[in-house]
């Protein structure tokens, strides 16, 4: 072998060997070769030296600050690109095919079961004592059970549309029955109702409570006190739903199948393309909460994005303290409830650095509260937000005195190091320091009349599943 042939055959492998990018058996071969080849040893040492020189270079210059500012300014008014639709088609096709199969099953299965039952019945009638009735009974029983199950599930499906949840003792069943696509987030019309429901009754923690919320959210509170055994049941149910992912023989709701609430919701979430109604009574664990002029935008841990538009209504969301320390959103009653840990804040996504902490750190809001950073929508629009501003707590309104707004205990507005203990003091400062921004729209929120929605941000259907969890 000439030196040139030697180099061509061996040396490209040397760099990969040096970078640990070859399999062990090849690595061993290279080592054996290096043991007896001086030129390759020289080559590999030179390469090692050059690699070290390259990697030992000083760090790169940071991005030019002027360029950085220009890039940020350019994208500020842009909408980040959504997932490519071409990838979204695959799950749709898969689920479409699955749905078609299940439609066939739904159409023909009862007939087959019926025929089977009749056949078994005939055989039972005609059989003598010698016939293995023990083998038939389970079959007949199974068929009957399946028929009963199917029939019951259809009854449940019908009742899900007409029967609103009324008791707190069966939250999970209600979730299964609830037709969540029919429930909307509060709009401007509901706002008056919501406002009238404000209460200033002191709670055990000294906080005003929302009496209507207390009634409406009894099931939520009962679920918080759910015994461990029941909670584990929810988890195992979720595990079952995960296993269900690979089952191509089931379909989504509306195809005659019998599904549990979680499964139905998950399928529903998968099969909807685009915006989807926020499933009722299923909490979505959040990574981040923000707001702009259009409304709230929540980013769920599983990748979903949940938009709750204001619709010029500051009561779009209620706030409560998370028992488990996790920020989560749940739709239960007139408006979604945002469960917050003591340190959780909402980011003002118009003015970076300004925050709103609806529940002051010391508050123990066991009941959901309507909290607003300004007394009304107009004043909310007029608010100026500073990059170093944090609104802690906010105003809530007494049901008895409609026009009276009261600050939650511990509420204040902090700008820089200065605390403003009430809204008037803050406004006095803001009026004399107009060098701050008002809210504007930065989200591509839905139209004002749209319900609370979930917009899947991932094309992966398994990541769209809403975690069934009760905070």
């Amino acid at each position, binding site marked *: 072998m000439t030196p040139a042939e030697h180099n061509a055959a061996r*040396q*490209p*492998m*040397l*760099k*990969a060997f040096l*970078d640990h*990018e070859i399999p062990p058996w090849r690595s061993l071969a290279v080592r054996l070769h290096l043991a007896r080849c*001086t030129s390759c*040893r*020289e080559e590999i*040492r*030179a*390469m*090692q*030296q*050059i*690699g070290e*020189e*390259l*990697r030992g*270079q*000083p760090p*790169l*210059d*940071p*991005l*030019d600050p002027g*360029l*950085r500012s*220009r*890039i*940020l300014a*350019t*994208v500020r008014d*842009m*909408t*980040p*690109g*959504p*997932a*490519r639709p071409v*990838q979204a088609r695959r799950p749709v096709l898969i689920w479409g095919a699955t749905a078609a199969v299940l439609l066939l099953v739904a159409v023909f299965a009862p007939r087959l079961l019926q025929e089977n039952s009749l056949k078994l019945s005939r055989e039972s009638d005609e059989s003598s004592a010698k016939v293995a009735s023990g083998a038939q009974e389970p079959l007949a029983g199974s068929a009957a059970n399946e028929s009963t199950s199917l029939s019951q599930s259809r009854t449940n499906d019908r009742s899900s549309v007409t029967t609103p949840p009324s008791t707190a003792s069966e939250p999970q069943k209600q979730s299964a029955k609830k037709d969540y696509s029919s429930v909307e987030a509060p709009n401007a019309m509901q706002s008056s109702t919501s406002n009238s429901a404000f209460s200033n009754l002191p709670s055990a923690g000294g906080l005003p409570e929302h009496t209507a919320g207390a009634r409406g959210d009894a099931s939520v509170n009962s679920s918080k006190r759910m015994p461990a055994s029941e909670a584990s049941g929810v988890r195992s149910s979720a595990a079952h739903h995960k296993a269900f992912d690979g089952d191509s023989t089931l379909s989504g709701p509306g195809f005659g199948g019998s599904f549990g609430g979680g499964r139905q919701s998950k399928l529903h979430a998968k099969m909807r393309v685009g915006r989807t109604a926020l499933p009722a009574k299923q909490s979505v664990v959040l*990574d*981040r909460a*923000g707001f702009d002029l259009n409304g709230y*935008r929540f*980013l769920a841990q599983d*990748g979903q*994005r949940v938009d709750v538009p204001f619709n010029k209504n500051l009561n779009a969301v209620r706030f409560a303290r998370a028992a488990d320390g996790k920020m989560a959103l749940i739709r239960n009653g007139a408006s979604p409830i945002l469960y917050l840990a003591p340190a959780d804040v909402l*980011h003002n*996504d118009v003015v*970076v650095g300004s925050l709103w902490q609806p529940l002051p750190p010391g508050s123990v809001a066991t009941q959901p509260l309507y909290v607003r950073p300004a007394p009304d929508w107009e004043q909310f629009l007029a608010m100026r937000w500073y990059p170093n501003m944090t609104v802690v707590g906010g105003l809530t309104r007494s049901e008895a005195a409609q026009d009276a707004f009261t600050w939650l205990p511990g509420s204040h507005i902090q700008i820089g190091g200065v605390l403003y203990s009430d809204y008037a003091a803050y406004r006095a400062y803001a009026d004399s320091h107009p060098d701050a921004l008002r809210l504007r729209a*930065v*989200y*591509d929120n839905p139209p004002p009349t749209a319900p609370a929605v979930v917009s899947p*941000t*991932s*094309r*992966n259907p398994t990541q769209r599943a809403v975690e069934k969890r009760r905070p």
Partner: protein
Amino acid sequence: MRDDLKLTRRIQAGDPRAFEEFLDSYGARVQYLVRRTVENRTDAEDLTQEIFVHLYRNIGSYRGEAALATWVYRVALNQCAKYAQKRHPQNVALEEQNEQASPDWRSDPEKAAVKGELSERVHDALEQLSPLHKEVVVLHELYGLTYQECAQTLEVPIGTVKSRLFNAIRRLRGSLSDYVLGETAGGVLRVEVAGEKAP
């Protein structure tokens, strides 16, 4: 990769801070990649801006199947290639056999501004490499991408990455022949400053 996906989802959700994080993570490296390709500094800044706008608009196409860095560099290099195609259409089809050093690279005054990013001698040697060799050296040696990630970024087979990298390092060795000495009697390879005598 989970964190990468998380970050891109936050960007997709309109979180401005997330994009700032993204920009701060990759801005310098993309800027460096662009400066390797684009001669004029103003053009380089414009192209860097275009790349990040492109990344922002297409953030949804990142699916987390590979490292975010791989995706970012691939987009950046594609944009650089498009730029080069516009400026020098005759250089579009660069084949492996044409990977020869461009003699005029070192004479460009714009390069002087970039020299502070690498020590001068290595920088000069790097500048003598062809674009394809330079890309793979930057991605692997400077940015720490694996061969697999380099292959994904450059959209070439791993074997091509291996051969390009090996050839690039050999060329670097040739360029640094004044500094890199061969095996000594003691078997120790040394890198010395030009002008000094080897023992």
